[in-house]
């Protein structure tokens, strides 16, 4: 008997039982089901939600692999630096090495496993209790979470915040498709406010730096935003920032791979190009305003805002996680604006507010996730006003109708 018919028999034996959603989640992962149309259209398009989510995951895989190598690389060059050796990055020389892969995998893969394991357990429990199928929303969230945290984050903290994020950020609203806040960002916000020392500073971005601090082997690595916020000299070149050989959250450093991911999402029509483009435009616009303020001499070098305000407007896109946020976070269709016009406004405001928070909040200079969460809350309002214009047009038509 083939696997297919065996699984079919098990599925039938589960029918109507409490555990059916749990089994079906595994079954539908292996086989798309034998469901046929009942009423309405008799044929359907090839895509389902699993395919949509899978496309997003595929676009994230290059960032994850780069993040693994970068975790090892940052660890090794930090040790070299503490020994007084300054090294230049070379892709095949000291970046794509087996040693970096081993160190990175040891650190990053557990984060991925904990993120998926804990999150999916919560999803399964809710699906069984509420008697609906396990929805695919967490597949993307589970992949995003390890990419937006520092590499040295303890696993238990990740587990606690994932439970918080999935339950409070999503399930209390009714599960996938009903949530107001982006679950991955809810998880990150929880981490940031519950364990702030683990989410910023010059220790958490490099593997083992926390352990070693205070010892003679102490190492460190400061992010570019951290350096700017303290008006320090930036030690990384623009090409390092573009290719991603810098400390930072695991998946967010390589801008070029994020751009590849964005192109793939836009080409496959899964990600909204309107949101991505308008977010970047919003960020550039805010950057230009700040540059203008510096030009006009209103803010001088003595100000604590000078460092980030004087960054050339286009360079903001290569700093921090604005690009990652625009491509993978702002485009979450459930929490974004849902009308095409609304998407333009929503994205523009995210970019605009991100850079504003970045410049005015030196204590925690990465404003992207706060800006997106804020706009998540306002997305329904934006949609409301867009839809109202259609409603008003209809009312106006009614009025001008001859009696």
């Amino acid at each position, binding site marked *: 008997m083939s696997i*297919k018919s065996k*699984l*079919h028999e098990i599925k039938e034996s589960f029918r109507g039982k409490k555990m059916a959603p749990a089994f079906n989640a595994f079954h*539908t992962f*292996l*086989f*798309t*089901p*034998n*469901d*046929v*149309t009942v*009423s*309405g*259209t*008799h*044929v*359907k*398009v*090839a*895509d*389902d*939600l*699993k*395919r*949509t989510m*899978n*496309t997003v995951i595929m676009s994230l895989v290059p960032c994850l692999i780069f993040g693994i190598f970068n975790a090892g690389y940052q660890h090794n060059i930090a040790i070299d630096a503490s020994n007084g050796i300054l090294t230049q990055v070379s892709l095949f020389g000291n970046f794509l090495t087996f040693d970096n892969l081993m160190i990175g995998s040891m650190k990053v893969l557990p984060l991925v496993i904990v993120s998926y394991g804990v999150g999916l357990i919560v999803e399964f429990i809710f699906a069984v209790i509420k008697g609906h*199928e396990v*929805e*695919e*929303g967490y597949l993307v969230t589970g992949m995003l979470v390890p990419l937006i945290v520092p590499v040295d984050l303890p696993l238990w903290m990740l587990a606690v915040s994932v439970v918080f994020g999935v339950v409070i950020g999503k399930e209390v609203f*009714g*599960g*996938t*498709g*009903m949530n107001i806040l982006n679950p991955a960002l809810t998880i990150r916000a929880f981490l940031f406010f519950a364990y702030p020392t683990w989410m910023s500073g010059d220790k958490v971005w490099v593997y083992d730096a926390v352990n070693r601090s205070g010892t003679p082997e102490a190492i460190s690595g400061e992010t570019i935003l951290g350096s700017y916020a303290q008006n320090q000299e930036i030690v990384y070149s623009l090409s390092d920032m573009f290719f991603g050989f810098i400390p930072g959250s695991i998946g967010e450093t390589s801008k070029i791979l994020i751009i590849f991911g964005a192109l793939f999402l836009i*080409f*496959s*029509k*899964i990600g*909204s190009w*309107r949101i991505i483009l308008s977010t970047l435009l919003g960020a550039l616009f805010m950057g230009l305003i700040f540059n203008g303020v510096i030009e006009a001499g209103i803010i001088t070098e003595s100000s604590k805002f000078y460092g980030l305000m004087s960054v050339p407007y286009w360079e903001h896109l290569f700093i921090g996680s604005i690009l990652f946020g625009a491509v993978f976070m702002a485009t979450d*269709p*459930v929490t*974004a604006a*849902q*009308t*095409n016009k609304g*998407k333009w406004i929503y994205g523009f405001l995210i970019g605009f507010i991100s850079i504003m928070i970045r410049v005015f909040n030196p204590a925690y200079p990465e404003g992207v996730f706060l800006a997106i969460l804020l706009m998540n809350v306002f997305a329904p309002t934006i*949609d409301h006003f867009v*839809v109202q214009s*259609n*409603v008003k*047009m*209809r*009312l106006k*038509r*009614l009025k001008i*109708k001859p009696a």
Partner: protein
Amino acid sequence: MSQDIVVKKGLDLQLVGNASPEIYTPKSSDYISIFPSDFHGVFPKLVVKENDIVKAGETLFFDKNSEKIKFVSPVSGIIHEILRGDRRAVLEIKIKADKEISYKKIEKINLVDSSNTINFLLENGLWTFVKQRPYDIIADPNSIPKDIFISGFDSSPLSADYDFITKDEKENIKAAIKCLTQLTNGSVHISIRKESNSFLRELKNVVIHNVSGPHPAGNLSTIINKISPINKGDTVWTLNLPDLSIIGNAILNGKFVAERTIALVGSSVLDPKYIKTIIGSDISSFLKLKHDNSRIISGNVLTGTKLDSKGNLRYYSNEITAIPEGDDYDLFGWAKPIFNKFSLSRALTFSWLFPDKKYDLNTNTNGEHRAFVVTGSFEEVFPLDIYPMQILKACMYEDLDEMEALGMYEVSPDDFALTEFICVSKQPHQNIIRKGLDLMKKEIG
């Protein structure tokens, strides 16, 4: 008078199994069935019982809510069986047909004033072909239509070519349209394909719209929304071109001739072609399938009614479609690249590479039912000036004010067939809209 309308948004789904342009007349079927469920919102009150003898054109039942609307027998014969379901609702009226059909004589009357004409249509079972917006139901004979719209072509996948099936019905259709022009103070609008050479272009006193673009260019909502959108309080009446030949035949010859030329289409049909048959005919008398495990549909793949292998041609259908059932599992069907199924995305689905390919689609849902997640795709195939996802959600949470404000008076369930087809969450859009319209009719009227 004629005007051009270009429809930009939409989708022409190309399927295997187009009917070849030949018309056959198969042996007439022994049993004919009428299904009251074809007439949405009608509550049938029977005037016949089992073993009664009827002529073609004699009343079988009327609508309890609007007793003037009568439904007549398409053939002469004996009422063989009346099937009832829950709470004795009539499901099917099965008639054993005579070999030679005898017709009830329809009195010729002078169709010059509108109340005369309406009574003529009501009394002879022809009113069933007049539908109304809002609500997409059989028209209320007491309403006064702003305009009357006639769809002169069908743009849905594998649909019957109206120009072809009505080519010998010129006189009947002209007579029917002449009678319809008296029923409105507005105009009679007819939509035809821009490239069509239909005789409809010769007509006077009507507005011809030359429509080009993809499906749903043939849906009347698309045309109405472009030229004269329905406001609250408005009523428009809609008709379908092939039905006009039945109306015209009754006017000119005094007989209710329920003949239709229908297309047999779809990849499971052995010999796709046109046939001449009677409304309610048993499909087994003319349909030959390539394989048994097929879905038989009265109508098209987007809006049709599912039939079993002994089903009957439904009242309004101009085609019978048969496609393979898709009741099988697909290993990693959600992850692997897909070439043989249609998709609007490019998420490892490659139908965008082959814009002219004809697909052999089956009835698999290609995934499970989910909450709405993806946004922005419905708008690509939805030409009306309405927000499709927002109106669907308003119907789901039954907010009457919002449904009204978003344009519920302008839509029919058919308009949401394409959005339902492309829905990644596999939501039943047409059903949602139909329930919303029913609710509005009940609460607002």
